[in-house]
C-alpha cells in the first residue's frame, strides 16, 4: 500500500485530511480531540461543520475518555465517520465490535504511532503546557516521555492494529520529512483520493521503532514488578485493593466494561439488613462499603483478557490504586491461556464465547 507525505506537522496533516473529507462530503462527521484554548480543556468532538475543526488537536497526548467507548454509541448510525484514535482506543473499539457494541462498517479509522498520554491531572493543573514541547522531542527520539501514564510507558502495542490510516508520529517521522500517512486499506485509498500531498510508496517499517519497543518492554517489567507484592496472597490483595472506596469509577470509564447493567450495580448487590445480620453473626465485623475487593476480582475474571491497558481506570481512581497495571498484568496471563490479544483481529472471537473440544487437559 502507498503513503502520503505532507509538508507540515503530523497534527496539521491529520486536521487537513479531516477538513478535506468533510468538505468533499466523503464523510458526514469527524471524531477528534479538541482543545478549548480559553478554558484550556480537552475533549472529544464529533464535528460535522469543517469550520469547527480549527480547534482540533487530533494527536494531543491526552485521553479524557477512551474513544472506543465514545464510538460505540455513534458508530451504529449509517453516517460515515472518520475517527482519529489512539492505538489502544482502536483496539478497545474492536473489542466492543466483537461484543456487538459498535460497527466498523461506516468508519474510517485514523490512528498513529502513540507516544503515550499524560494523566488527566496534568491537564487540570495546566502542567501539560510545559510538558508538551519536551514530549514531542522525546518521542521523536524513540524515548519514553516523563510524566505519562504508567501503562502507556509500559505499552508495547503503540503501533496501531487494523487502522485504515497510520500516521507516523514517533521515531520514524524525523523532523523535515513532514507528516507521513500510511494507507493500509482499500478504504483509505478511496477516501484520500483527491487529497493533496505527495504520494509515495514508502512503507511503514516497524523495525525503525525497535528502540521505543525495547524501552517500553523494560518499563513493563518494572511496572509489573512494582505491583507484585510479597507475602500471602490475601495480604497482597488487601495491600493492593484495600484502599478501594467502591466508587466503581474504574468500571464506568473502562471501554471493555460495556454491560448496561453491571452485576455489581444490580439488585444482587443491594445490601439489606438480613445481609448485614447474616454477615455480622459470622464475623462480628463488616467493612463498609462491602465487597470492594470482590468487585475487583469479579471484574478481573469478567474482562481482564480483553484489557487493552489504556490506563483510564488508574487515572480516575480517587485513591490511587494501580488498577490499570493490575489489569494489564493479570490480563496478559488470562489472554495468554487462549493465545488471545485484545483488538488484534475483529474476526477473532472473545475467549469466553468459543471453546475447543480438546483443551485444558489438567482441568476436570
Amino acid at each position, binding site marked *: 500500500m502507498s503513503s502520503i507525505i505532507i509538508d507540515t506537522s503530523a497534527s496539521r496533516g491529520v486536521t487537513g485530511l479531516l477538513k478535506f473529507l468533510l468538505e468533499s462530503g466523503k464523510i458526514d462527521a469527524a471524531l477528534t480531540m479538541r482543545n478549548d484554548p480559553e478554558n484550556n480543556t480537552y475533549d472529544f468532538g464529533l464535528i460535522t461543520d469543517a469550520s469547527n475543526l480549527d480547534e482540533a488537536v487530533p494527536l494531543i497526548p491526552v485521553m479524557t475518555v477512551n474513544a472506543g467507548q465514545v464510538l460505540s454509541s455513534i458508530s451504529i448510525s449509517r453516517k460515515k465517520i472518520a475517527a482519529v484514535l489512539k492505538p489502544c482506543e482502536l483496539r478497545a473499539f474492536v473489542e466492543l465490535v466483537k461484543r456487538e457494541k459498535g460497527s466498523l462498517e461506516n468508519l474510517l479509522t485514523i490512528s498513529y504511532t502513540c507516544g503515550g498520554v499524560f494523566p488527566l491531572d496534568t491537564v487540570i493543573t495546566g502542567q501539560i503546557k510545559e510538558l508538551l514541547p519536551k514530549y514531542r522531542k522525546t518521542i521523536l527520539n524513540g524515548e519514553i516521555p516523563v510524566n505519562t501514564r504508567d501503562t502507556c510507558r509500559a505499552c508495547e502495542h503503540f503501533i496501531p492494529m487494523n487502522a485504515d490510516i497510520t500516521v507516523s508520529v514517533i521515531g520514524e517521522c524525523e523532523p523535515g520529512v513532514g507528516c507521513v500517512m500510511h494507507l493500509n486499506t482499500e478504504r483509505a485509498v478511496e477516501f484520500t483520493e483527491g487529497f493533496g500531498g505527495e504520494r509515495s510508496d514508502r512503507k511503514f517499517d516497524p523495525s525503525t521503532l525497535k528502540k521505543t519497543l525495547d524501552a517500553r518492554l523494560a518499563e513493563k517489567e518494572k511496572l509489573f514488578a512494582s505491583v507484585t507484592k510479597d507475602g500471602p496472597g490475601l495480604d497482597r490483595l488487601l495491600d493492593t485493593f484495600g484502599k478501594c472506596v467502591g466508587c466503581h469509577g474504574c468500571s464506568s470509564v473502562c471501554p471493555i466494561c460495556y454491560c448496561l447493567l453491571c452485576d455489581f450495580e444490580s439488585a444482587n448487590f443491594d445490601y439489606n439488613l438480613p445481609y448485614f445480620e447474616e454477615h455480622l453473626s459470622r464475623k462480628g465485623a463488616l467493612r463498609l462499603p462491602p465487597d470492594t475487593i470482590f468487585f475487583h476480582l469479579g471484574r478481573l475474571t469478567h474482562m481482564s483478557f480483553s484489557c487493552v491497558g489504556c490506563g483510564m481506570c488508574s487515572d480516575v481512581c480517587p485513591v490511587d490504586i494501580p488498577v490499570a497495571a493490575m489489569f494489564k498484568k493479570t490480563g496478559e496471563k488470562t489472554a495468554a491461556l487462549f493465545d488471545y490479544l485484545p483488538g488484534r483481529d475483529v474476526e477473532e472471537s472473545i475467549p469466553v464465547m468459543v471453546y475447543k473440544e480438546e483443551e*485444558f487437559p489438567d482441568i476436570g
Partner: protein
Amino acid sequence: MKKEFTPRITSFLCKWCSYTGADLAGTARLQYPTSIIPIQVMCSSRVDPVFLIKAFLSGSDGVLIGGCHPGDCHYETGNYHARRRFAIVKGVFDSLGLESQRLKLSWISASEGPKFARVANEYTEEIMALGENPTRKSIFL
C-alpha cells in the same frame, strides 16, 4: 482437646450429571464427608466466575464445580464454556498469588456415584492438608 478442622466445600453441581451422581452415591450408601455443601445448578456453565469468588471470599475452604463430561452436556456445549471460565478464574487467582488449589472442577456423570464419593473424599483430604481458608477469619474483605 483440639477441635478437628472440618472443611466447608461449596459445591456447584450440575443437575443432569454431578448432582444425580451425588444422589447415586447416597442411594448406594457410599461414604463421603459432610464437608460437601451441594448447590444444584442447571448446568456447570451457570456458575459465573463471581460465584466462585464470592464463595472463596466468604470463607469456603474449597469450591467445587461438578459438571457432565466434555461432550455429554445436556445443553451440548455448556461444560466447554464452564471449563474456559474456570481456567480464567484459576489464572486470575494464580496471578494474584491466591490459593487456586481451593478451586476445583470435576467431571462426574449421573452414573458415577463412586467417582463422586472418591472426588469428595480426595478433595476434602486435599483441603484439610491446606488448612482453613484465611478468608474465614479476615473481616475486611
